[in-house]
């Protein structure tokens, strides 16, 4: 039997590597760059609509209701309210977190838009709507302009928020 070091020893070709690769130069735009730079400082940055006064985080640079640019940057609190959540029990390809885990929509104090966050440091059967949570950040040296700077949210210990305070954000 010929060894693998000679062409004849390699056996017939049965497969062909055909990688498809796309190289992007990605820009998140000016408004989301404000948000991302905030993450690199360990802060949540949003933007306020000059017409309706709503604060979007992350901001896309304009108010979807009024169609006007959101030019005023607003720093938001590190705490917020779970408006709704999902306990993930199903494994899937590329999963990076050990199941079961909680994926929740978090409405930061001062914001009028919730965003998705991982909830940790709580048994999955204790998560509930209205739970108050706080962001846990990576070590200061590891902060980057990316959502990876937020490790997760955990219960803040405050009493649950009143349903009326977040019912518009479900």
């Amino acid at each position, binding site marked *: 039997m010929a060894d693998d070091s000679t062409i004849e020893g390699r056996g*017939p070709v049965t497969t062909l590597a055909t*990688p498809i690769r*796309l190289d992007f130069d990605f*820009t998140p735009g000016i408004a989301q760059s404000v948000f991302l730079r905030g993450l690199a400082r360990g802060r949540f940055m949003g933007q306020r609509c000059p017409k309706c006064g709503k604060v979007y985080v992350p901001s896309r640079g304009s108010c979807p209701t009024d169609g006007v640019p959101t030019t005023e940057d607003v720093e938001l609190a590190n705490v917020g309210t779970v408006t709704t959540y999902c306990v993930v029990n199903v494994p899937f390809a590329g999963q990076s977190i050990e199941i079961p885990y909680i994926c929740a929509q978090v409405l930061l104090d001062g914001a009028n838009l919730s965003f998705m966050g991982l909830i940790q440091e709580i048994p999955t059967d204790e998560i509930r709507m209205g739970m108050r949570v706080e962001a846990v950040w990576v070590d200061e040296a590891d902060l980057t302009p990316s959502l990876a700077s937020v490790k997760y949210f955990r219960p803040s210990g405050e009493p649950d928020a009143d349903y009326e305070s977040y019912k518009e954000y479900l």
Partner: protein
Amino acid sequence: MAEHEALHASHVLEYPYSRSVGPVIGAFLTGLREGRLTGVRGAGGSVIVPPTEYDPTTGEDTGELVEVGPGGVVETWAWVEQPLPKQPLDHPFAWALIRLDGADTALLHVVDAGDPGSIATGDRVTVRFRPEADRVGSMADIEAFVPEGSA
């Protein structure tokens, strides 16, 4: 001000596909790795290069493998003055349909002709393989075709 400038980052999207090539294309690629060009006999005795499992006109199974080349004729060509980063050569070249000696169909590959005045339809070209140690069983095992007599 810097706070209101857009960030940029490189972002790579890549799918590492690996295809099964089957017995006929597999034989063709194995041939390339060994420095040979292979076609297959189709219905009516025509020789198809690169080989296919089925005759493109009748759909019948193709037959025996046939060695072709290493020379051939340029059937048509297009000059690339400014190659893109992932194209086969980093200097100007021609894409060409090349009908190899013994074949009835043409193969699409590169002609390393130097300048567009040095290639014409009907010209004879010959294959230039990569060094044996670099060949893996791929179309890129053929580095290029070159004008006959220049190799």
